[in-house]
Structure formats: structure tokens, C-alpha cells
């Protein structure tokens, strides 16, 4: 029997840690166990492969509205007791400054359902077998070679189990699985094409199909150039997903909103996007990477954020809801116990589809425009305007007379997400679960379900040039 099979479960560890905490304040114990495998490749050869097995225990103590957190990955009683003591001492020190703003831990409510169906046992077992990663890489190398190209990218799969036990009798326990593959195909001249796939199950990742899509974007024609200006644009879902992630941070974050820093502060109930734009956070949808509860233990539920172009809601954790006042309550979007200092964040965004059959139909009305498959190094310029800057990458094309015709040099854009969604003219019917596959720190896989879209007036603020 493996060590993993005999190890105590996160729920058992959480229960034990809760029992070791000193009485007096409210206590929440959150235990996260991550098992993951990531294989990278470059120039059609494996480069780095990383397996991780780690368990983190977060002990949160709340006293007089002050929440203090102490974490450890040592699971013996002494280490857990020490973490609880440190959290309690910190909460007491904090409380000496006067009343705090944290509204306290949630209590369980009758009839709560917390299983969102984000776990696939077979996928978890298979996904962590290194042979599956090796096979996916071999497939990618073979498909790229068929096209006379080299493959670069990543294959990763993980299983993360989260258990919460609190002094308010709240108990949560959920395991989620995720898998991601990204392939960039590259020719000898440096022209690249990108494709990726995100799924709940590793066996749903089709390495052959992903690599084929990436290879097809490597167009051997000379690169055309597009100068600064405003152009009609067609974004692939991967690019739309990046824009929506930023919208989540800048406009849909309940803390920023309550502090008056958010792009939708004072604008709920107003038209902020084109009619027809429907954006929801749908954590139970099997099209996303489903999650049953957030890291305060609040049960997640579908939340309409933008309806027919009108801003309807922002997401909250318990802290931001308390700050917002009135009828605000947590919508289940805490990204850490007691909420993150950066505020809550949507984790399961779904942008509704439209009527277009494919990107070809989106491009059809465009006389001269740009087709973008991937965005890169996007960053905020002005928060309240949702003004971003970034680059296109790994497959940018010119649209001429209604057709995608030639590869373009990458361009820099400086544009507003809300403006682009306001100028959105059409969307594909088909949606896709997309992700950047960026897994920093403790693994928390998330993605956006969205279609491709066409928008007007995409602001290209600079081009790229060769310097020799």
C-alpha cells in the first residue's frame, strides 16, 4: 500500500488541528493536499518534469473582528499546535489595536450541497502517472515533425483536495482534478502557432488535436506589418479568456468595488457592454473546472455578473460583503481563508455564445482587420477604465476582404476591456474552456468558458520590428 493511501485525509487532519487549537476565538482549519505532475518540452524534446506532493494546513483565528492566519506543512501534533498558537497570538496582537472588520466565520446552513463534481477518480490516478505525460509529449513531437516543425509546451495534471473544519461546526471536503496542455509549433524562421486545451480530466486532453491546431497556424508566408491605429479584431477564445480574467480583477472584484476603485463602482444597473453580452460565474457547470465552495467555506452558486450588457453584480467574500454593507453577502469567492488582501475573484467565468458558426464567419464582414490567437504580458494601465496593454503572440494574422489571409508581425495593444466588450459585434456559438495554465504557488486551476468574438476599433498602439 502506498504512503499516500495510508496518510490521513485532509478532513482528518483538519479535525485534528481544530481539536488542538486553544479555545477562545473562532477557528477555521483549511487543509489543502496537492498532487501534481508537470512535463515541459522545447525543440521537440522533454526539458523539465516536476512532480509535487504537498499538504498545507492553514489555521485561522478570529478575535474581535481580527483574523490571523498561520500555515504549516508539518502535520504532527506539535507543529499544528504551534501554528494554532501563532495564529492566536497574532489575532490577540491585532485585536489590541481596536475592533476589526472581519465579520466572523460562516456557519453551516441546512440543505447545503457542496459537491460540484469537479473530481474524476480515474483521471486523478491516470493523470499522475508519468507515462501519460510521456505519451502526450511523444504525440506532440510526432505531429509537429509531420508538419516540419518543432514543438514547445507543457502537459500538466493535478488533483487537489481541500477540507475545512471550523469552530462554527462548518465542515467542507472536496477534491478537484484538472489537466492542461499547451503546444507552440515553430518553424526554422521563428514563426509560431499556439493551441491549448484545458479539462477536468487528463484523458480529455487530445495531444494530437492540440498540436495539429498549433501547427496549422504556422503560416510560411512572409510576415505582414500593421501600424498603430484602430482595427476590427477577431479574438480566439484564449485571448478572450485573458481579457475576461482582467475584467474579473478590475471590475468584478467586490473589494475594489466597495472601496470605489472598481471599474463598475457606481455603475451596477447601467449598460457597460454591448447588448447581448452575458457573463456569469458558474462554478457548478461541468464546462468549467467546477468548485463547490470557496476558501471561507461559503457554498458557490451561479451568479449573473453582466446581463444583456448591463452590469448586475460583483463577486464578494465575507470581508468585502461586510464593507459593501446593505444586502451584500459573500458569493463564495474568497481565494484564501478570511479573504485575500487583493479581494475576491471570480473563478468560473462563462461568457455566453452568439450565432456565428466559426471564426471565419466572424471575419467575413471585416475589410481589413486583425485575427488574434493569443495575448501576452498583459498588464493594467488604468484600473477604473479597465485599460490594459499587452502583446499578441504565437499566431497573429491579417484579415483582408473578409478572410484570414496572411501572418502578421505581433502588435502591441492598449485598449479597455469594457470598451472592447462594448464594441463586440458577434460571437461564435461554440464556447471553449480556456486557461493560461499558470500555476504559481499552491495549485489552483481555473479557467474561463468563452466563445471567439469580433469587436470594432481594437487599438493597436505599436508594432514589432527587427533590429538587425
Amino acid at each position: 500500500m502506498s504512503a499516500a493511501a495510508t496518510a490521513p485525509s485532509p478532513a482528518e487532519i483538519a479535525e485534528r488541528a481544530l481539536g488542538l487549537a486553544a479555545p477562545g476565538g473562532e477557528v477555521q482549519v483549511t487543509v489543502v493536499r496537492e498532487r501534481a505532475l508537470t512535463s515541459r518540452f522545447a525543440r521537440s524534446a522533454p526539458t523539465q518534469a516536476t512532480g509535487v506532493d504537498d499538504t498545507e494546513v492553514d489555521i485561522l483565528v478570529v478575535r474581535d473582528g481580527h483574523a490571523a492566519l498561520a500555515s504549516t506543512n508539518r502535520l504532527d501534533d506539535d507543529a499544528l499546535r504551534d501554528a494554532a498558537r501563532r495564529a492566536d497570538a497574532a489575532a490577540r496582537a491585532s485585536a489590541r489595536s481596536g475592533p476589526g472588520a472581519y465579520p466572523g466565520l460562516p456557519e453551516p446552513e441546512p440543505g447545503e450541497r457542496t459537491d460540484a463534481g469537479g473530481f474524476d477518480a480515474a483521471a486523478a490516478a491516470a493523470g499522475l502517472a508519468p507515462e501519460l505525460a510521456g505519451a502526450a509529449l511523444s504525440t506532440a513531437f510526432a505531429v509537429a515533425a509531420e508538419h516540419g516543425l518543432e514543438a514547445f509546451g507543457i502537459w500538466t495534471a493535478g488533483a487537489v483536495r481541500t477540507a475545512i473544519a471550523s469552530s462554527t461546526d462548518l465542515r467542507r471536503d472536496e477534491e478537484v482534478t484538472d489537466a492542461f496542455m499547451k503546444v507552440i509549433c515553430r518553424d526554422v524562421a521563428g514563426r509560431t502557432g499556439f493551441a491549448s486545451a484545458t479539462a477536468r480530466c487528463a484523458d480529455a486532453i487530445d495531444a494530437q488535436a492540440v498540436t495539429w491546431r498549433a501547427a496549422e497556424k504556422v503560416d510560411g508566408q512572409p510576415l505582414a506589418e500593421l501600424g498603430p491605429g484602430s482595427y476590427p479584431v477577431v479574438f480566439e477564445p484564449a485571448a478572450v479568456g485573458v481579457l475576461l480574467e482582467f475584467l474579473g480583477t478590475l471590475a468584478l472584484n467586490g473589494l475594489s468595488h466597495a472601496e470605489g476603485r472598481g471599474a463598475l463602482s457606481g455603475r451596477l444597473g447601467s449598460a457597460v457592454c454591448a447588448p447581448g453580452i452575458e457573463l456569469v460565474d458558474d462554478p457548478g457547470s461541468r464546462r468549467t473546472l467546477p468548485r463547490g465552495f470557496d476558501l471561507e467555506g461559503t457554498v458557490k452558486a451561479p451568479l449573473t455578473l453582466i446581463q444583456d450588457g448591463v452590469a448586475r453584480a460583483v463577486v464578494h467574500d465575507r470581508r468585502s460583503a461586510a464593507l459593501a454593507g446593505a444586502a451584500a453577502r459573500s458569493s463564495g469567492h474568497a481565494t484564501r481563508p478570511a479573504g485575500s488582501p487583493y479581494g475576491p475573484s471570480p473563478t468560473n467565468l462563462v461568457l455566453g455564445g452568439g450565432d456565428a458558426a466559426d471564426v471565419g464567419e466572424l471575419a467575413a464582414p471585416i475589410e481589413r482587420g486583425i485575427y488574434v490567437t493569443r495575448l501576452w504580458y498583459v498588464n493594467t494601465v488604468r484600473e477604473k477604465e479597465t485599460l490594459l496593454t499587452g502583446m499578441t503572440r504565437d499566431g497573429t494574422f491579417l484579415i483582408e476582404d473578409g478572410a484570414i489571409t496572411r501572418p502578421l508581425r505581433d502588435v502591441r495593444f492598449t485598449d479597455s476591456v469594457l470598451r472592447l466588450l462594448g464594441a463586440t459585434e458577434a460571437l461564435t456559438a461554440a464556447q471553449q474552456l480556456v486557461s493560461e495554465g499558470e500555476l504559481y504557488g499552491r495549485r489552483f486551476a481555473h479557467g474561463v468558458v468563452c466563445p471567439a468574438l469580433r469587436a470594432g476599433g481594437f487599438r493597436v498602439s505599436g508594432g514589432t520590428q527587427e533590429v538587425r
Partner: protein
Amino acid sequence: MLDLLTEVLGAVPSRCTYAEARHVATDEEDLLVRNGRVDHIDASASDGIGVRVRAGGGWGFAATRGSTPASVERALARALAIAESQPSAPARPLAAVVPARGHWSCAHEIDPFDVSLEDKLALLFAAEELLRVDPRIVRSDATCESRRVRTAFASTEGAACTQERVECGASIAATAVDGDALQVRSHPGSHGSAAACAGWEHVLGFDLVANAPRVVAEALELLVAPDCPAGRRTVILGGEQLALQIHESIGHALELDRMLLMEASYAGTSWVVPGDLGRLRYGSEQLNITADATLPGGLGTFGWDDEGVAAARTALIEAGRLRAALSDRGSAAAIGLQRSGGCARADGFARQPIVRMTNVSIEPGGAGTLADLVADTDDGLYLETNRSWSIDDRRLHFQFGTEVAREICGGELGRLLRNPSYAGVTPTFWGGLDAVCSAPAWRLWGVGNCGKGEPGQVMRVSHGTAPARFRDVQVGVA
């Protein structure tokens, strides 16, 4: 711990041609006072072991929590299984290394973990209170961080060393909102609390309380300041902004793994190729850049890197000419270098070492103080404190925004301007460098949020800078 690692590595199977094991124990504490209350007070302790092996021509790395013989053996077995399941590939040799032996620790006067929570909170409250002077200040932050990392490293090539580093930093920031306008002002910088490999004396040196009135006054002034106009201008970059300019357009561009396309799918490649070493003109004669892992106080300072290569000081660019790249053992060997540049670094025990910056700095020039440089500038802009940053995947085309700009007219600082931004092409921009302030104006800036690698790794690096002047820069691009 070192004995355990050495013992386990002494028993690796013969099919394993190389193995290294690294135990990392990390203690961290983060405090945040916001809007008159303690907002976050977090402490974490973790330890674990990462084992990297080469077997059957493939590489594997596995990490697990804990520090028992069983956990090391489990990680070793998993790393071997991962390595042996990789598709076959040409062997990738490692540059030779003198086995690391001994212990290294960074100097500090006041251990930040010996300073009480009460004292730290008192300092943060005292500074933060001075930011809450106007209802347009919607957010007032005062934050500090403390960190201790203990590492033990052993390899089948005979390395056996331990290291201990202590880091801390602090910052304040005021966010002002009026209608659709939002402006931020911070001190001493906007990235990673300007942390350093140093004790609490480093935080006290920031003088957060004395700077708070200036910070909030400038945040409010920016709300009504004129926008920075567009045009081609002479620009003086303050030290913190210059640090990020170096980080993005020199440091990352000179990572050898990027030049070799090993990071093409994520971090990107480079406009520089290995054949440029020793030949390429990167910038003007004023440009002298070093990578120095021996620099006191740097976040990129250590005794040995995470492959056991001794810390070194390397001239990357001399008088504008490219001389060397940042490398690890694998990338160095790939281009025929005899030795690694000592730039292999890993983010904790659960990540494997990859090529990272150490302390990549611009050497001081002869332009005197910032006041001297301003006095020597008839017409231009002074840009200070990074707010926005973006660069392409070849590190060639960039766009930055700063919190604040000041006009320079007739050798004197003038009006405050808001929403400044500038853009450029790396060699052209550095070719416009015509003056760097002198050594007394030079200091280290910590950058604590450098992302690279898959799964993601956040690295902490420092950059030494002095304010510098650039000619013919495109400003007002956003």
C-alpha cells in the same frame, strides 16, 4: 539534514547518472495595515525536499513535504519514475562544477523575527495614519514582510552545503479616487516592499512615517494634475523604475535558456542569440551591467546557487558591448562554456532550479546626484516609481507606466504630470542612455515578484541602480 541527503544520495541506483537533493525550510510573516485596521497578519512555516535526477537520458524532479528518510526516498523514487517515462532525447550534459562545501549566511543586524508583532504594527499604524487625511484617499496601506530560508543541498558529485538567508522589507501606498480618476503613490517602491537580504534595520531605513505626508500629498495632487503629453522627450528614470527597466529589457533578455528557446512556450525567447556574446552592441558607452550574486543585501545574493555553483560577479555588458549571459549548468554546457554562470535558482523545495537573475545592476556613472543630472537637463521629464509594465516575448518592445512624472525645464523640476508612460525598442532605448548618476546615488532595489517556469516560480531578485538619463524617448503612449 545534510547527512540525511548525503546518505540517501549515496544509495541511488546505478541507472541514475546524476542526482541532487535540496531541503528548504521557510518561515514567512506578512503584515498589512489598511484603512486604519490590521487587514492581514499571516505567518507560514514550511519544509520539504526536492530531488532532481537524470536517468535513462531524461530528467525528473519530485518534491514532497517533510524531512524524514522516508520522504527523501519517496521523492527520489518518484523523480526516477518521472525521468524514465520521458520520451528519449539527446543527452544534455552539465558544465563542470567544484562541489559546494560549507555554510553561508547573509549578514544582518536585527533579526526581523526578533522584532515583536506589536512593534511592527506600531510602525505600520504610525505611517498609515498619516495617509488618511482626505476622503478621496480610498485606500491607505502600510505593509511589511519578513522571511527566513534555510537550505541544505547535496549531489552525487560531492556537493554538501547549507545556507541561511534573512530578508525583510516594507512599504506604504495611498490610493486616491475622484470620479473616474484613480492615482496611486507609494514609497519606497511599488514592487515587493523593496525587500533586501538584510535585517529589520533595512525597514527602519525607509523612514515610512516621515515619507507618508509626501506620499499622500502627491497622490492627491495627481488627481488634478495635467496628463503627461505625448512626444519624443529626454527622460530621467528614477532608481526604482530603472530597476524594472533593467529587469525586463536586459535581465530576462540575457537568460541563456531563453536564447536557446528552452522557454519559448511560456516566458519566451530573446532577441539576443548566443552568437551575440562578445559582439553585440546592446547600448551606449555609458551602459555597464553586472550580475553579482556576492553583493551584500541583494535578494539574488547567496553562497551557492541551487545547483551548487559558487556565487560570482559577472560583467554582462561593458561600455555597451554584450559580454556574457545568465546561465545554469545545462545552458552553459549547451553553448560550450566551461562553467555555469551560477544563475540556477528554485522557488522553494517544490520547484526545480531554472535560469534566473541574481542581482543584475547598472554600474554607477559620473553624473553626480539626481539634482546634478536634473540641473544638466534643459528640457525633459523625470519619471518615478513603476505602475505598469509590459514587454514582448523576445524582450525587445516594451511599454512602461510610472506613478508620477515631473517636468524638467531649464535644469529644474517643475509641474507634476499624471499617467506618464513610455515605450521603446531595447537596443535603441539603451543606445539613448547618455548619463548615469554617481556611486552615492546608487542603491539596490528588490523585486519580489519575478515569474517564470512551469509550474510557476516566483523569484526574488535585486537590481542596483542610480538615476539615469535617456535621449529621444517616446512618451505619452497610453
